[in-house]
């Protein structure tokens, strides 16, 4: 099929693959990118909030033609029990800046746009091509890939594995472990279409302003999980995700969870009358810092979700993916322009550069969070939301009970549910993990 040899092959045209391919191609390297989907984005799912800064570092003038939906001016966090939510809202007109900080996007459209930029930068992009295997030389160095198209090995100096969370190729080649049930979440999502004005009215938004809701509580039925609702221009992205290990032990159905979230009295009015146009499912890496695998070796590097570079605490993945792709591309370009070989020693540069970026620093900060949330999921996702609701309701209902008695009742409920020691230790554990 392809006889020539490439400077680099990038597997996957998602956020990380596009960033890597763009970075190398725009610096004049000869790049081949392979994507199994019919078009870039056809296999990809995201919430989706996209962070401007990380894209700006790759394509500074992206706002000119990237398909962006709304910029977020308001963020809500909801602790939900079955009939109520206790919320924190932050809204600021400061987010209506000339170059907004966060946008909602629709991945299929965004990935197509990003891929067009990659082609314009000079890379060869082949879709509908599944890479089936990494090719090695006798010493074990990765020297290229095999695909499901006719033809033999396609050769390259270095292969960038940007294959996403499932990471089939890397795990089968023994470069890293398979994702484990307790380090990945399964998320399901729906796209609800509504007229632009209706979305504006329901969320109090004008023009391209957007609102972001993240929700936790009894909606995940004691499993470690989170739901989200993001406004796009004329649709609402809405989904829920929980750890795969929790799904397996509870045997809850993800679609039943999603439907219950939609029926929740706090959510229902926001999506009433909408037309659902798509139902998707995808995994999210949740293992954090401790799950980061070996990132480089002879003739290869791994970026994005395939390397578990995902900040589950802050629901950030695409920006870590784009940044790790860009950094891998820059490191490879440096080695390439010195005329050095793509050995393990030389490619260690990628890890050094990544360790110095926010990607690894952020994951390091929350390194104890995944395990804490996992082992204490019932308290954080069932007990506390219910207690919060009770406390808030107790506070708001005016019924002739003296306030001092109300406070006592609330405190007693917390202690009854979790014991004094339990409350203190949960708070301490959370504080330490958050630190």
């Amino acid at each position, binding site marked *: 099929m392809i006889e020539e040899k490439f400077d680099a092959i990038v597997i996957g045209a998602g956020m990380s693959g596009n960033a890597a391919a763009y970075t190398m191609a725009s610096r004049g390297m000869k790049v081949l990118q392979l994507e199994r989907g019919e078009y870039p*984005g*056809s296999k990809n799912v995201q919430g989706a909030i996209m962070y401007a800064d990380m894209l700006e570092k790759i394509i500074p003038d992206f706002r000119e033609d990237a398909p962006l939906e709304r910029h977020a001016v308001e963020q809500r966090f909801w602790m939900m029990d079955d009939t109520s939510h206790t919320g924190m809202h932050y809204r600021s007109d400061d987010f209506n800046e000339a170059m907004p900080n966060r946008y909602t996007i629709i991945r*299929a459209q965004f990935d197509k746009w990003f891929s067009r930029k990659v082609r314009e930068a000079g890379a060869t992009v082949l879709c509908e091509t599944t890479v089936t295997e990494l090719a090695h030389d006798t010493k074990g160095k990765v020297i290229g890939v095999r695909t499901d198209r006719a033809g033999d090995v396609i050769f390259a100096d270095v292969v960038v594995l940007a294959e996403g969370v499932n990471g*089939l190729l890397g795990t089968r080649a023994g470069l890293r472990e398979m994702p484990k049930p307790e380090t990945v979440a399964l998320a*399901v999502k729906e796209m609800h279409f509504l007229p632009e004005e209706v979305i504006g009215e329901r969320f109090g938004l004008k023009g391209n302003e957007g609102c972001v809701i993240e929700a936790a509580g009894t909606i995940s039925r004691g499993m470690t999980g989170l739901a989200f609702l993001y406004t796009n221009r004329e649709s609402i992205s809405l989904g829920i995700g929980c750890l795969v290990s929790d799904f397996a032990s509870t*045997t*809850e159905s993800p679609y039943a969870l999603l439907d219950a979230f939609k*029926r929740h009295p706090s959510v229902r009015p926001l999506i009433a009358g909408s037309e659902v146009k*798509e139902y998707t499912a995808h*995994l999210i890496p949740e293992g954090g810092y401790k799950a980061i695998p070996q990132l480089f070796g002879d003739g290869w590097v791994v970026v994005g979700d395939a390397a578990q570079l995902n900040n589950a605490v802050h629901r950030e993945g695409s920006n870590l993916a784009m940044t790790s792709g860009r950094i891998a591309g820059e490191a490879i370009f440096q080695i390439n322009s010195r005329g050095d070989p793509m050995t393990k020693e030389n490619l260690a540069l990628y890890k050094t550069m990544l360790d110095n970026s926010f990607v690894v620093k952020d994951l390091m900060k929350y390194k104890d969070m995944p395990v804490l949330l996992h082992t204490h999921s019932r308290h954080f996702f069932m007990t506390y939301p219910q207690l919060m609701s009770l406390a808030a309701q107790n506070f708001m209902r005016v019924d002739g009970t003296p306030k001092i008695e109300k406070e006592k009742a609330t405190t007693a409920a917390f202690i009854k549910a979790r014991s004094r020691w339990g409350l203190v230790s949960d708070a301490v554990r959370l504080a330490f993990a958050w630190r």
Partner: protein
Amino acid sequence: MTIAVAELRVEDKLFLNRYLVDAGGPHIKVRPHEKPSPNLIALTRVCPAKCYELNDKGQVEITADGCMECGTCRVLCEASGEIEWNYPRGGFGVLFKFG
């Protein structure tokens, strides 16, 4: 006033999606077994596309046509050898319009 939110069965949800099914080349297979493991049984509830079902002999079967290629079943059952998991051929399988 009650506000209606369209409620759909999984089958109807999947109907919204676009697929290019590789007829005759299913990308996921369940190995023949006598008694399914707890994880394999869990898939009949946990697979977001409801691809897994128990047959009347109490064994788990898969129809991968509606598969969204999420990988959940791979994470739960590949290591034990109960299922064989691959991506569909390039271009085939689910084709998200929005994602």
